[in-house]
């Protein structure tokens, strides 16, 4: 490592405007930058290039079934919680061509997509979302079969992580042991202080992206401020999900009357699965030209709340909302653990915010536990 770059695991202080140089370095290195930006009254994830693309001076208010953006007086860059988008939209796109197929010399020739996917630099990844990416890794790369489309996007990701500066009432990362501070899984991790970013260097690639920036070794004062800020944030997390009786609680209560009660509120709209950073289910559609000599197979995001999801010829395995909500919750919090050795929930709270009727995953578990048939 040249002396003008910090070593891995160092913490450095970076004047805020210098983050632009990091962005420029990433772009020069061939990365496509995606990060938070304001659109349609929400903070979404999209391609960005400049610091002013970030939601400077914006914050959000989130509650069950409610999301609002608000101007703040301070010009903070990352003073908001996770929005409706998650990184899965880049790693596991909701619409993807699996292959094209063509009839040639009487036989079908199947061709996987050739164009390489972008090399993404993710800007502003939160700790819970780092955990969510780790879960997708297990689902799509950890088994006997590995998803090559996910792998090709995943292997080149640069992660610029941001530790949370504030907490929404929907967050419960501390229960799921995923946040609010990222301890691993980043190339660079920022803690935003009033006039500087305190930057933890997580990898050689991360260090390299600090080239030509006026970074300085972090002072004890900066480290102390950042640590206190993080402790404050951690204390703000109020929502809790008790996990010590999972997965049993769900397996033992598959016939619980509470599922009928949830079904009177849940609309089966699938919002929760769309916003969830770990929900990975897909379906496929096939297209062809009129002569039937060429076609494509497209993979689309799907949801266990969709009616067709459990279609079998002659019937539907989960014909009602009761069985679909039960499938979702018991997969997230119970069978996921058996399948992938981890909970399917990272406590990001998105499903709570974006549920149009404000169903709270944490409260549904509590209700089940409170009334559990023991």
């Amino acid at each position, binding site marked *: 490592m040249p002396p003008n770059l910090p070593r891995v695991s160092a913490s450095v202080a970076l004047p805020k405007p210098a983050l632009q140089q990091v962005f420029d370095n990433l772009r020069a290195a061939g990365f496509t930058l995606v990060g938070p930006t304001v659109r349609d009254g929400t903070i979404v994830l999209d391609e960005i290039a400049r610091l002013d693309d970030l939601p400077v001076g914006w914050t959000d208010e989130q509650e069950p079934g409610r999301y609002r953006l608000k101007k703040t007086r301070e010009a903070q860059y990352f003073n908001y919680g996770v929005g409706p988008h998650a990184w899965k939209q880049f790693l596991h796109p909701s619409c993807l061509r*699996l*292959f094209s*197929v063509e009839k040639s010399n*009487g*036989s*079908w*020739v*199947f061709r*996987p997509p050739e164009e390489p996917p972008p090399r993404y630099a993710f800007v502003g*990844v939160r700790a819970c979302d*780092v955990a969510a990416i780790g879960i997708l*890794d297990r689902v799509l*790369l*950890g*088994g*006997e*079969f*590995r*998803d*090559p489309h996910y*792998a090709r996007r*995943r*292997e*080149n*990701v*640069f*992660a610029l992580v941001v530790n949370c500066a504030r907490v929404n009432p929907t967050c419960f990362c501390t229960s799921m042991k995923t946040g609010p501070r990222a301890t*691993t*899984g980043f*190339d660079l991790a920022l803690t935003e202080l009033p006039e500087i970013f305190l930057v933890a260097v997580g*990898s050689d*690639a991360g260090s390299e992206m600090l080239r030509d920036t006026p970074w300085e070794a972090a002072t004890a004062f900066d480290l102390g401020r950042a640590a206190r800020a993080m402790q404050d944030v951690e204390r703000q997390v109020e929502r809790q999900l008790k996990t010590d009786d999972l997965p049993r609680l769900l*397996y033992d209560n*598959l*016939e619980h009357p509470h599922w009928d009660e949830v079904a009177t509120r849940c609309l089966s709209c699938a919002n929760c699965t769309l916003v969830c950073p770990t929900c990975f*289910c*897909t*379906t*496929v559609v*096939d*297209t*062809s030209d009129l002569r*039937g000599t060429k*076609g494509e*197979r497209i993979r689309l995001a*799907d949801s266990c709340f969709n009616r067709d999801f*459990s*279609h*079998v*010829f*002659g019937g539907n*395995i*989960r014909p*009602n909302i009761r*069985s679909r909500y*039960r499938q979702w919750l*018991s*997969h997230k919090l119970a069978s996921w653990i*058996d*399948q992938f050795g981890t909970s399917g929930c990272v406590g990001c709270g998105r499903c709570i915010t974006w549920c149009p009727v404000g169903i709270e995953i944490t409260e549904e578990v509590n209700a089940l536990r409170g009334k559990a048939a023991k």
Partner: protein
Amino acid sequence: MSVASPAMEIRNPADPMLPRPAVIQAIRPEAAGIATYSLAFVDPADRDAYHFRPGQFNMLYLPGVGEVAISLSSDPAESQVLGHTVRYAGNVTRAIGRLKVGDMLGVRGPYGSHWPLEDAVGKNLIIVAGGIGLPPLRPVILSILSQRDAFGRVLLLYGARTPADLLYTREFGRWREAGIEVNISVDVADESWRGKVGVVPQLFYFVRMEHQNTLVLTCGPEIMMRFVIYEALARRIPKNAIYISMERNMKCAVGFCGHCQYGPNFICKQGPVFNYAAIEPFFGKEDF
């Protein structure tokens, strides 16, 4: 890459969702709306690399139409040509029904778990099938035929809705000669039918079998399998000696699409063949 801290090899894995072209070598009608397709991969290397075990399935792909899970119904010892007995049900299977000998489709597999033929050596077997549940068990029967002495008594209890719906009837003679006790019933008889009438699990009433050292292998509608399990347990056959083959909507067969989840299991990975003891907590749960 740092976010990839889990120790997983992610560079250029093979694509498990890409079919390989195969040609239809023969089509044998079995019953109204059901036929057996003999498929051979176009590429000899694919043919040589392919081996399957009884109970496993392939994904058959028709470009522009869709893909369906179909069990292998042929002899695992002959894997150059792969038998698939298809019931024309909905969109994709009906399109398969319009194909002719020499037509192509895409094939990938084999997927899933298999019947416990190794564990069955030296034991008695009760094979119970309903309707289109027999094809995934046919490889078991064909494997037994080639090493009949390795097994004890072998009973086949098989039923279909009507006599015209019975599959593989022309093979029953050979199966019987080899010492497989073939018991057939139909739900609804016609004037030509001389055999038993009733649902498949009732065939248990007509057979005597010791409960020790006996395995039950069953495939058919879930409701039928429920009664098969009931009859088997009533005869003191232990839960862990009962194997069932399950079906759920399936889009990828490699554990990515999420459709075939069954509690902690994916039907495409841990199934379709399950030991009953392992899935008892979920089996028969309403709308599960």
